[in-house]
């Protein structure tokens, strides 16, 4: 804290009109077990220091891992010189202090006291459960875990002080199921702020290895129009593209297919989308964003109607609105930019099994290859693995086909939103059904 204040003072002494200092300190342990033995142990103290320097409406960003006085002094001078070479930007401003809300319960250091041997034993057991799950599981790429404890200190010359600790636990498994010479990976990971919020090893194995058994040996189906049922395994396929389309900067620049559509019903009324940075214990929850703007829950799509975009301080000023607390740094050395937090499609009332039972000709999609939705024009196209449905019955695993749709067919064609959401990642979604997509085979 003192250290960060000192650097902020130095920036102001060097002639800044305003300045911001971001200091990240992390402790990281990651372990990989394969074939019953520890294969990798990694221990580290990531992090570093970043400064934004503002003078005459011009700004520059600097980052360093060298925290010696001389080096930091030098960095500040360099940043000042770089700022002078940029062009004035009237919207380049820092936020004022805000009120940080309730404790989000995002820090758990209870694993610090657990021995490395015990953590290895957990992974050995996880891998064994996966290998023993079924006769078809015959190879292992290993089980792994990582623990990151983070300390963030953010200060700016307007008086913003955002200081908090957080933790992040991940556990993953990767095995391979083989059937008649075909292989399919049984892999995936779960994440949580508290270690105890992670599902037990049996559940992780059941979730990801069972999928491989369902999908191994898939073959194409004939091309044409199909009903497509996206499972919660593939929230990424829609939300990744939407996270860029709902980015306020992309909306201003016109690089989003949703630009200029605020207030429009672009999707079926079943669709509700939130970006919620204040979800208690949420994997991407934080008391403030990475400029120090207090976090909030942003409703972006309400009953199919676009209600708003995500903004940081600069873009909000430009758009004439307020920051939504959506400024994110991927690491200490990355410029803050607009991004999502806990980004999800809200669950609906439909039951996945009912949707499948009433499907005449469709595919349950459990794995996606590719980005899916393209944020610039709203077109959807991806390769998939899944299960063919005929008259409500699961027929066979499907592989080597593509699914595609334009934005109208895709968003207005949502025919069901189910109730089966789980929050183990930054993107989450329940089962979603799209009435008609083109299958290429």
């Amino acid at each position, binding site marked *: 804290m003192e250290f960060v204040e000192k650097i902020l003072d130095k920036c102001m002494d060097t002639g800044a009109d305003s300045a911001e200092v971001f200091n990240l300190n992390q402790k990281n342990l990651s372990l990989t077990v394969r074939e019953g033995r520890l294969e990798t142990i990694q221990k580290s103290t990531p992090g570093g220091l970043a400064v934004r320097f503002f003078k005459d409406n011009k700004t520059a960003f600097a980052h360093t891992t060298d925290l010696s006085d001389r080096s930091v002094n030098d960095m500040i001078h360099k940043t000042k010189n770089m700022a002078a070479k940029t062009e004035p930007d009237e919207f380049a401003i820092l936020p004022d202090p805000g009120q940080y809300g309730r404790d989000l319960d995002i820090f758990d250091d209870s694993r610090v006291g657990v021995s490395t041997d015990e953590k290895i034993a957990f992974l050995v057991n996880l891998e064994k459960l996966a290998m023993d799950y079924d006769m078809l599981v015959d190879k292992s790429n290993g089980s792994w875990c990582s623990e990151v404890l983070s300390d963030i200190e953010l200060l700016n010359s307007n008086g913003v002080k955002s200081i908090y600790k957080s933790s992040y636990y991940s556990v993953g498994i990767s095995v391979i199921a083989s059937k008649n010479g075909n292989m399919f990976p049984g892999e995936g990971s779960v994440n949580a702020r508290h270690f105890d919020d992670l599902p037990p090893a049996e559940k992780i194995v059941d979730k990801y290895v069972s999928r491989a058994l369902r999908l191994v040996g898939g073959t194409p189906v004939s091309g044409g129009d199909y009903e497509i049922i996206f499972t919660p395994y593939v929230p990424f396929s829609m939300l990744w593209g939407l996270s860029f389309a709902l980015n306020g900067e992309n909306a201003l620049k016109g*690089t989003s297919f949703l630009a200029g559509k605020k207030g429009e019903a672009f999707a079926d009324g079943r669709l509700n989308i939130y970006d919620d940075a204040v979800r208690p214990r949420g994997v991407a929850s934080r008391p403030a964003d990475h400029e120090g703007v207090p976090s909030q829950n942003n409703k972006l799509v309400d009953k199919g109607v676009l209600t708003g975009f995500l903004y940081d301080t600069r873009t909000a000023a430009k758009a004439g609105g307020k920051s939504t607390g959506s400024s994110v740094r991927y690491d200490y050395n990355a410029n803050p930019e607009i991004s999502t937090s806990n980004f999800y499609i809200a669950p609906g009332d439909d039951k996945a099994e009912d949707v499948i039972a009433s499907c005449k000709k469709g595919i349950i999609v459990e794995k996606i290859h590719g980005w899916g939705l393209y944020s610039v024009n709203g077109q959807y196209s991806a390769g998939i693995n899944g299960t063919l449905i005929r008259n409500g019955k699961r027929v066979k695993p499907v592989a080597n086909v593509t699914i*595609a749709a334009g934005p109208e067919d895709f968003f207005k064609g949502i025919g069901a939103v189910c109730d089966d959401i789980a929050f183990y990642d930054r993107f989450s979604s329940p089962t979603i059904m799209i009435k008609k997509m083109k299958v290429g085979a």
Partner: protein
Amino acid sequence: MKIDRREFLKSTAAISAGAALSPGILSLLSGSGCSPGARGDLDEDQVAAVLEKALSKGGDFSEVYIEEISSTSFKMSEGSFSTATVGISQGAGVRTADGPKNGYAYVNGFNFQETFDAAETSAYISSSGKAGGIADPAAKSSPGYVTVEMPVSDVAETTKMGLIQNAEQAARDFNPLVTQVDIEYYDHMKRRKIANSNGLRIENEIPLIWVVINVLAEKNGVRHRGRKRLSAHQGFEFLEEIDLNEAARIAAAEAVTMLEAKPAPSGKMPVVLHPGWGGVLMHEAVGHGLEGDAVFRGASIFTGKLGEKVASDLVTLVDDSSWPNARGTTDFDDEGTPGQRNILIEKGILKGYMHDLISAKLLNAAPTGNGRRESYRHIPIPRMTNTFLENGAAKREDVIADTKNGLFVKALSGGSVEPATGEFNFDVREAYLIENGKITTPVSGASLIGKGIDVLTNIDAVADDLELGVGICGKGQWVPVTSGQPTVRVVTGITVGGTA
């Protein structure tokens, strides 16, 4: 645009004078860039102590990797340079390798005690008590695959910005339908020092330049984006030798042309790929399955197939980390193995895999110089460098004229592969129908899928116009690569996923 050399010298002189006022580790603009020794990293005695500590519980070998990167970047957006970034990253990673096992720990900065403690952590991986010996240090000189005439650190920001500004204007002037031009510029100088218990000692400096041009065009509510990327491990002369303005016009042309695109077709059809970054298809569909770690785990469909015919006779696939100044070139890989040209597939026969030290040992092969890492924060693993399909004898025009109907893919944005199944996918950015041997209508909204092995066996035409395309490859960690190929036709085996 060519830059007058005298202009360079003038700006260099001015900046050096400025830098003298603020000496120190962040002197990005000073002539020296990175000068070994001045940074206070570990000396030979300290390195030796760390290597010994890392082997104290056993292991085949230990390694210290010291890295320092000084970077500059800026972005031109909406006609203005609204911010710029300078950065310094320095640290040391210590590794203990024991069979397939790795113990790894890293520290920020260069502090002997912290690095020594890191060695204690990395040593945890072994409990064999049997350690490889510590050999006498022997320095290796650089093979010189990366050359620098004009260090990026000697060039004034205003000069770099001037080039970007001209390119931005060139994109805007291309067509009034161009509505947005974003250009990102990044350069760095990376200094590496690698030492291992087998006596290896390497010091190496390698620069990188990376420019990404994104152009948006818009007409009647239809939007499309065009992109061009340029990169090399080279001095600033790289940007003198290429035509940045022309690159900007190519990106603009893609955006504008694709405004007229019809929905892409769907189904299996012959696909002709444009030279250059289209090679990413080979990178994803085949290359990842030839990386030593996937091979020794049996997680690749190419495991155990050395000497077997896996591709059409027309296919010779190479990974060459010694290609002068290319974005995937290494000089040395990040374990100290010199860059080299590795033939992976020769006339359809599988000849070799790509290895780091560990996979080479486990598969009883020689290291191939493919042990790479994103930074000192990562363990080296087998990775591609410059991966390309070698030239054939056909002519581009003939390949297209011989294709009755199909898809001509000019630009792919990128893709991924599942090594276990060889199934790949790509998102197409710019593509056209081929009708009766002629390139006709632009089509959008397609992805390509298939299996690597099907593509390899179904390549039925390879032209003589090889180009490398630049990109970035992620496999838990990111490294710069190129992918390349001449004009290639895949007669069947690729499914096009459009809506028409």
